[in-house]
């Protein structure tokens, strides 16, 4: 600024210059802030585990398939299209068609409902019964503990597939029965984990304090011990979800799951087996989808156990 008694015009100009300089510094700081936030964002992006995001994405799509299958495909899962038998994958039929002209993509989408429901039932049975047993064993101690845990050990001495086959014989064939059978085989691992967690939590100070401040056995168990023991049990549930899908599809493949027209992933592969010479996609594609879902469930359960440790 050259003179103090300058005209209003020059005053304005100087003001404008000041404003300009201020705004340019502002802009610069804003740019810098933007750049720093961008690098921050990049750094954050680099820290996001891509595999884990993909895993959640796969599971999310599978759950959506199970919940609203008709939004994903316009074809029917059980009624074939005439003169469209055994078509290779194309723009019209993404995963090809089977021997009855049914769209394989539609069958996989609708099959997600069966396979995921089965897995949920299986994990539910294992989680509820196993955790209850572990909770009682871990908090009761002494004889009750010993009795429960020894009988759980007996379940472990019979190979899982044979145990689930024995239960399927008893309950009869079908998706839900196969799922319950698979769930019963996982009771042992849930009970053992829940028991060890309960024993760990029970010896902590806040549980002592809860008892000391007059909490009854049942109340302390429900309000303090159970919620604090659940984290690792949930991690196991995620892991069991993946292996339950596999085990149920194995039972389905052997023919003990859903009856034929039902689209179930294991059954799809079993049905495609008769056409391996002519239609590779009928077995290959459902298998890959199955592997992707199981891998994703396992990846998610791994992230649970990592965040715990």
């Amino acid at each position: 600024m050259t003179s103090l008694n300058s005209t209003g015009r020059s005053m304005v100009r100087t003001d404008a210059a000041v404003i300009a300089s201020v705004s340019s510094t502002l802009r610069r700081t804003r740019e810098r802030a933007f750049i720093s936030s961008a690098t921050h964002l990049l750094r954050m992006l680099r820290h996001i585990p891509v595999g884990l995001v993909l895993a959640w994405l796969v599971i999310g799509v599978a759950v959506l398939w199970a919940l609203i299958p008709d939004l994903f495909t316009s074809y029917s899962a059980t009624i074939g299209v005439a003169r469209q038998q055994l078509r290779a994958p194309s723009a019209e039929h993404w995963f090809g068609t089977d021997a009855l002209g049914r769209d394989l993509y539609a069958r996989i989408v609708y099959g997600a409902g069966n396979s995921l429901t089965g897995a949920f039932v299986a994990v539910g049975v294992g989680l509820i019964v196993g955790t209850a047993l572990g909770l009682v064993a871990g908090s009761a101690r002494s004889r009750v503990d010993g009795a429960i845990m020894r009988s759980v050990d007996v379940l472990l001495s019979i190979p899982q597939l044979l145990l689930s086959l024995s239960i399927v014989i008893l309950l009869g064939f079908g998706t839900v029965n196969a799922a319950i059978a698979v769930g019963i085989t996982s009771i042992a691992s849930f009970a053992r984990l829940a028991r060890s967690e309960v024993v760990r939590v029970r010896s902590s100070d806040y549980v002592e304090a809860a008892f000391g401040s007059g909490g009854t056995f049942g109340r302390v168990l429900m309000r303090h011990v159970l919620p604090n023991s659940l984290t690792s049990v949930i991690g196991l549930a995620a892991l069991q979800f993946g292996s339950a899908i596999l085990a149920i599809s194995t039972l389905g493949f052997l023919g003990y799951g859903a009856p034929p027209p039902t689209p179930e992933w294991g059954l799809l592969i079993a049905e495609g087996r008769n056409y391996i010479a002519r239609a590779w996609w009928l077995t290959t594609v459902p298998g890959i989808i199955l592997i992707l879902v199981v891998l994703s469930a396992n990846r998610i359960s791994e992230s649970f156990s990592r965040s715990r440790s």
Partner: protein
Amino acid sequence: MSRYLIKRIGQAIVVLWAAFTVSFVLLQALPGDAILIKFLNPELGLGPEQIADIRASYAADVSVPVQYFHTVANFLTGNFGYSIQAGVPVGDVLVANLPPTIWLAALGFMLAVVVAVGISALSVLTPFIWVRSLFRSLPSLFISTPVFWLGILLIQIFSFQLKLIPVINPGPWQALVLPVLTLAVPISAPLAQVLMRNIDHVLTEPFVAVARAKGASRRWVLWRHVAKNAVLPTLTIAGILFGELLAGAVVTEAVFGLNGIGGLTQRAVTNQDIAVLQAIVVFSAAAFVIINLVVDLLYPVFDPRLRSKGEVVA
């Protein structure tokens, strides 16, 4: 030591008895009747009295506790009942179906050991990180792969695309190649996982640092010092591996149409042939218990550190 031995054997017998009881409760005591399924078929034209006679000949008409004691006594004397579908003693059926499964399981297990050792060695020795992590993630991929799908995929590739192994009338060895490959994959996965975890653990031990500090190369340390210590703990999963082998054999035999214990199991479930399934369940539980017992007893023999500790305690 002998008291410990007796105690362990006693525990094993109790577990075995409990497993037998579980299988009895599941298969025999609860409703579901194979005899009715087979003989109520109207084409056979049997009257209710004749069916009652047949039931009596299978001792299916007595009360549950009596059946239980019958079955226990029979199992103890080596009489495992009659296969209702085949009409022959279960023991004969089992013996007839055993050889193919033993071949399949033995070869599959050996290949699985080779694959697992290969994967875990490469996951440590390869110079590139990305190759190492690739090998590290292989076992979790193997675990997530359905065995039946893998078998079908192998048939597709080797029999139909490459035409290396004929589908119809393959030679006795050719017929085993694909089933053994199929079975080896799910068995190798837990083995490789345990091996890799052990190697990681042993690598952090002080004696490894000492050996390295004395100038031993990484490879030398791995083979001379780490391998020995990492292999031992894999013995502890022997029982689990046996279960996996049996389950794998059921599925593999179903895919490849082999006539072993696995195929027998599948037919027994489909036809509700309960005596056969019960014998298979009890035998596999017995094998599981014996394997675990042997591992427990042999472990101190292989690991001198445990032996000295055991002697101090005793």
